[in-house]
């Protein structure tokens, strides 16, 4: 049984369908990249996978005993405000909330997991700092640590490298790849940087307000749509240079 099975799903805002024909499966351990132009429905689909939005038609099923409280998420734009007074540690450990459930305070184990994840992403030394004072790349790593605190099963990342400089971009891609290889965690990442997507991901899902490709990355580069999209230099933030 797949971790996620999407059957004939479509999503709409106020009755206006923005993406449909979604048919794909995500297996445990996959590294799936969702690609497509701006406005093609990538974020919308991710909201559906997270249960923040219900499909207009079709179904999204979860398997392998995946619970909604076992998903880690890195939003495209965090809904938190820029000038919120929170320390890095406070932000990261808030990812442990749903493992802790209704019990008050965080346990020693929660703290340890938070510290371990910060170390893994190289932000441990920043733990006392105020989140709002970090650079963009540091903030993304902190938010990725928080996402990891929430899950050991599945990470959903919405354009994690947008706004980062080329070096920070490559570093973040490497970190994500090593997470996938070392921990076996399932990763679903949105990116409009196709070159990096086919380089790092195992599966590609291409959206154009409907599903135009789903399959292994190696197969995607052979298809017409893949060639065309890659040929367009589909790396708008120039990260592969």
């Amino acid at each position, binding site marked *: 049984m797949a971790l996620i099975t999407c059957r004939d799903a479509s999503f709409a805002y106020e009755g206006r369908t923005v993406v449909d024909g979604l048919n794909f499966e995500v297996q445990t351990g996959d590294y799936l990249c969702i690609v497509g132009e701006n406005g093609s429905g990538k974020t919308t689909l991710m909201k559906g996978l997270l249960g923040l939005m219900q499909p207009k038609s079709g179904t999204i099923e979860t398997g392998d005993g995946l619970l909604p409280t076992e998903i880690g998420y890195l939003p495209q734009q965090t809904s938190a405000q820029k000038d919120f*007074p929170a320390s890095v540690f406070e932000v990261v450990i*808030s990812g442990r909330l749903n493992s802790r459930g209704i019990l*008050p305070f965080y346990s020693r184990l929660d703290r340890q997991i938070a510290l371990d994840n910060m170390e893994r992403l190289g932000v441990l030394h920043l733990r006392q700092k105020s989140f709002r004072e970090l650079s963009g790349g540091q903030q993304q790593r902190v938010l990725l640590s*928080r996402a990891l605190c929430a899950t050991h099963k599945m990470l959903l990342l919405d354009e994690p490298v947008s706004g980062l400089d080329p070096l920070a971009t490559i570093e973040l891609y490497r970190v994500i790849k090593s997470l996938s290889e070392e921990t076996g965690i399932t990763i679903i990442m949105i990116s409009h940087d196709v070159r990096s997507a086919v380089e790092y991901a195992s599966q590609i899902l291409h959206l154009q307000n409907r599903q135009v490709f789903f399959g292994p990355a190696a197969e995607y580069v052979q298809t017409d749509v893949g060639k065309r999209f890659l040929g367009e230099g589909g790396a708008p933030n120039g990260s592969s240079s």
Partner: protein
Amino acid sequence: MDLLLEMFSFTFMIRAVVVGLLVSLCASLLGVSLVLKRYAMIGTGLGNVGFASMVSATAFGLSHLALAISMPVVVVAAFLLLRVSESSKIKGDSAVALISASSLAVGVIIVSQTTGLTLHVCSAMFGSILAMTQADLQLSVGLSIVVLVLFVLFYKQLFAVTYDENFAKATGTRIQVYKSLLAILTAVTVVLGMRMMGALLISSLIIFPALSAIRVCKSFLSVVITSAVISVACFFVGIVLSFGYDLPTGASVVGINLVVFLLLSGVNLLRQGGKI
């Protein structure tokens, strides 16, 4: 010192100080979330709804039940305001402003048709420390402790919902539950503080300490603690001054809060100036 001794020789003053300190503490803790979530207007709205329900209770000759009647009314209003401020259809903050002005209007109309604009209206608007009875004291102390305990127990959920609602929701937190909790606790605090601080001034007890603390603190926990300390200290200084110089209590407490806010804003400016 003599002033303090004299002050505590009056039972009504002891009552006022005890309830005031507890309510200030509750208000400052909840205020951090409300200010950071941009729900500060809800405090104002609840104050006005509380005013309307209190003067109405008095107008219909139920002044001894004013607290008991206001409580459910304001709790319901809190839910409503929370919903309204989130709806994207009507602009949230305008809607809150509308509700709060309307409830003030309703209150004033009821008063003008019944008792007229008398002393009790003035005390409902601007507060009075004489209003506190023994029963009020017990109710206030009990409920403040409940608010404090719930705040501590659900501190991490309140942080998560305040900091990043979407992440909390996406990872399986039932955010509506905790937002409603925030609304209920705020409503209870507003009603408890209204008597003394006045319906028009109670929201500043919620907003000021948090705003001041945010000026100088870097972590959420330090904001919460600083806000609590500022609030309790300002209340105490305010009530002593009001006793010593015969000033209205609510207004003196707000005045002291304003002074602290300006001071800390100045500190913050200096600090940033130093960095550049």
